[in-house]
């Protein structure tokens, strides 16, 4: 009896020991996948980590590593893009395990600053005012501090199927009125075809359209915010699209779903209101239509007006978790404002640089591979970029606004209800969240 009890005891102890080892194994592997920047050893090589979701980044990072043996950078492709990544950065910031450098889209930067995820870079960077236009600097500078280095400008662009327009004898629309009538013509000629879709899944898409119409969803004076998401300009845009959706000439499906990608690939969607980065994403969306699209300036509200909004565009930032901010800032500056770094980005990531001197690079003479049928793609981008208009500032809780937009407009599309009602839901949700968090808000 006693001997079998002893055996039971040994077995139990053995299981406990194995479990402990397994748990220790799990915890050590998770800590090593975090920031490894504390491993600067006696050979004085500084190790940095960068997280970036763009295709083609490995080439950029390995070029730096070859020419900078004392600062080695490791690229980590994040598990999510956009707000999935930003919320992970906010959460991991509390634990101090963020990578040294991250890509942050312009609309998310104020929220990152408000959550203390990023550090000001004034002490590590030279003055950026000779490299960038003021419009680009306004996106990364707040109350005297610079929080990131701008990488690119992503003006919104209209893409259309060259063959479909040719068959129907249509010219790319230059005004929104013309866009509406083209949409009706295309859908009438073939009820399966749509000129585009109203995208409830991409709040930044709608924000870009509102920017073009003259909206300012957030304005700041001193320390006080004003929120005006349902201002007159935005209502004009909402009403316009409501008319198209109600008339059945624009598809209500969300972008980036399998259904939408199949429609783009099969030619059920013959136009896409997108942005400069579209050729970088097209191969994933509609690979069999390579070379069949033409890019044109976005339609305007009045003929000849070159104002256009942006969708996306990012800066690289240094996070609070970084143990080597000086070296991280050096890398960020090289990548986004040096000729060599920008050439690599243009070539591998199809970037259109925000830095003024780089907008006439020889690298931009060749179009992105997907737009092989349009040799002048990048010079079109350069001319469109001159008319870019942004909001005065993005809000400190833009993620709440965007999440509310997706829910409110998805419901409006699903239930055929008013877009204006959805807009005021977004407005009140944003306002209440800012007040609840303690920001000073008027109205």
């Amino acid at each position: 009896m006693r001997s079998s009890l002893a055996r039971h005891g040994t077995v139990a102890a053995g299981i406990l020991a194995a479990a402990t080892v397994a748990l220790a194994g799990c915890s050590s592997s998770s800590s090593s996948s975090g920031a490894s920047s504390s491993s600067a050893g006696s050979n004085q090589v500084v190790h940095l980590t960068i997280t970036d979701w763009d295709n083609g980044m490995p080439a950029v990072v390995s070029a730096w590593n070859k020419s900078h043996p004392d600062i080695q950078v490791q690229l980590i492709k994040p598990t999510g893009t956009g707000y999935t990544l930003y919320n992970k950065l906010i959460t991991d910031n509390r634990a101090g395990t963020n990578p040294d450098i991250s890509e942050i889209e312009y609309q998310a930067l104020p929220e990152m600053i408000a959550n203390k995820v990023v550090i000001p870079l004034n002490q590590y960077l030279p003055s950026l005012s000779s490299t960038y236009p003021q419009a680009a600097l306004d996106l990364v500078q707040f109350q005297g501090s610079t929080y990131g280095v701008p990488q690119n400008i992503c003006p919104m662009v209209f893409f259309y199927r060259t063959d479909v327009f040719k068959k129907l004898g249509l010219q790319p629309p230059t005004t929104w009125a013309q866009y509406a009538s083209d949409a009706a013509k295309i859908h009438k000629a073939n009820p399966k075809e749509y000129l585009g879709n109203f995208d409830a899944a991409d709040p930044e898409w709608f924000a870009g359209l509102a920017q073009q119409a003259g909206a300012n969803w957030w304005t700041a004076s001193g320390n006080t915010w004003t929120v005006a998401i349902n201002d007159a300009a935005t209502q004009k845009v909402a009403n316009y699209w409501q008319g198209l959706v109600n008339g059945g000439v624009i598809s209500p499906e969300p972008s980036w779903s399998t259904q939408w990608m199949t429609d783009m690939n099969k030619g059920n969607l013959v136009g896409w209101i997108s942005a400069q980065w579209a050729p970088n994403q097209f191969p994933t969306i509609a690979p069999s239509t390579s070379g069949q699209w033409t890019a044109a300036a976005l339609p305007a509200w009045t003929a000849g007006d070159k104002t256009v909004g942006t969708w996306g565009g990012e800066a690289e930032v240094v996070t609070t978790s970084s143990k080597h901010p000086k070296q991280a800032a050096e890398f960020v500056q090289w990548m986004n404002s040096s000729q060599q770094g920008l050439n690599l980005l243009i070539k591998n990531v199809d970037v259109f640089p925000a830095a003024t001197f780089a907008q006439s690079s020889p690298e931009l003479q060749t179009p992105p591979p997907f737009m092989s049928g349009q040799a002048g793609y990048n010079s079109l981008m350069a001319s469109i970029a001159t008319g870019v208009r942004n909001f005065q500032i993005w809000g400190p809780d833009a993620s709440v606004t965007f999440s509310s937009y997706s829910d409110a407009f998805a419901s409006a599309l699903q239930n055929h209800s008013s877009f204006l009602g959805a807009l005021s839901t977004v407005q009140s949700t944003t306002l209440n969240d800012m007040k609840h968090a303690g920001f000073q808000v008027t109205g």
Partner: protein
Amino acid sequence: MAVAGRRKHSSKLPVLFVAPALLLLALFTFAPAIYAFYLSLMKSHVSGGLLGTSTEQVFAGASNYANTFSDPQFWSSLERMLLVAVIGIPVTVFLATLFALCLDANGARLTTVSRLALFLPYAVPGVIASLLWGFLYLPATSPIGGGVIDYFGNRTIFFTVANVAVWGVIGFNTVVLYTALRALPPDICRAAEVDGASELQIALRIKLPQIAPAISMISLFSLINALQLFNEPTALKPLTNAITSTWVPLMRVYSDSFVNNDIYGGAASAFTLLVMTVAVTVAGGAAATRLTRRQSS
């Protein structure tokens, strides 16, 4: 000597065996729950500067709970979850019982293959199953009439989501009931056969009442699972406008905590859901016990 020694040993050993499980339960279930409750009483307050140069965690009392309960979306999400449960649970229990009884019937053929086929969906991870079903539903890729039937309509969405959930768990519940049937003493069934009862009568009058405890157990498990509905709507959400980010309570918890960066509101919603789930479990368990006691008496 043996009796006294045994009693002394047996008073320590069970505690020792249970201790690791209790430790894990305390560390990974109770401690996080207590911390979540603590967080739900806090909120983040920004002070100073346009972009909040100082943010601190302050005591919020019950304001997070007040926000949750006064939000009409919270109650709508509860309604939607209950609607999916009302569709899904009876179907699960009915089909699992039906399949188990069929597998156990005398003339049943190919039982091993059928059991495997029924169990296979359970082995598919929930997210992958939802994505695959999404492809089956979308008009562009649907082989089951997605171009004609709108699987993502306002009414049909509940059946759509319930279908994916039911498909995944039928196999597991069938196996549980089949095992219970296999454990029944064969004498009563043989006696009934001798008396001239048909297969159907044996199934309904003899087998079914005897596996009533197992049926009530799988019903309770299905109910607890239904309260935690999350995988299916989340995986289907990018495919359609019909599912919002707060479609069911658990999605609301996720959305509050990890999209809206309001971990305190998320903790309040999560704790509310926890209390409701525990209440339903206790009530369901009590009802099941009463049913079993009435059955065996």
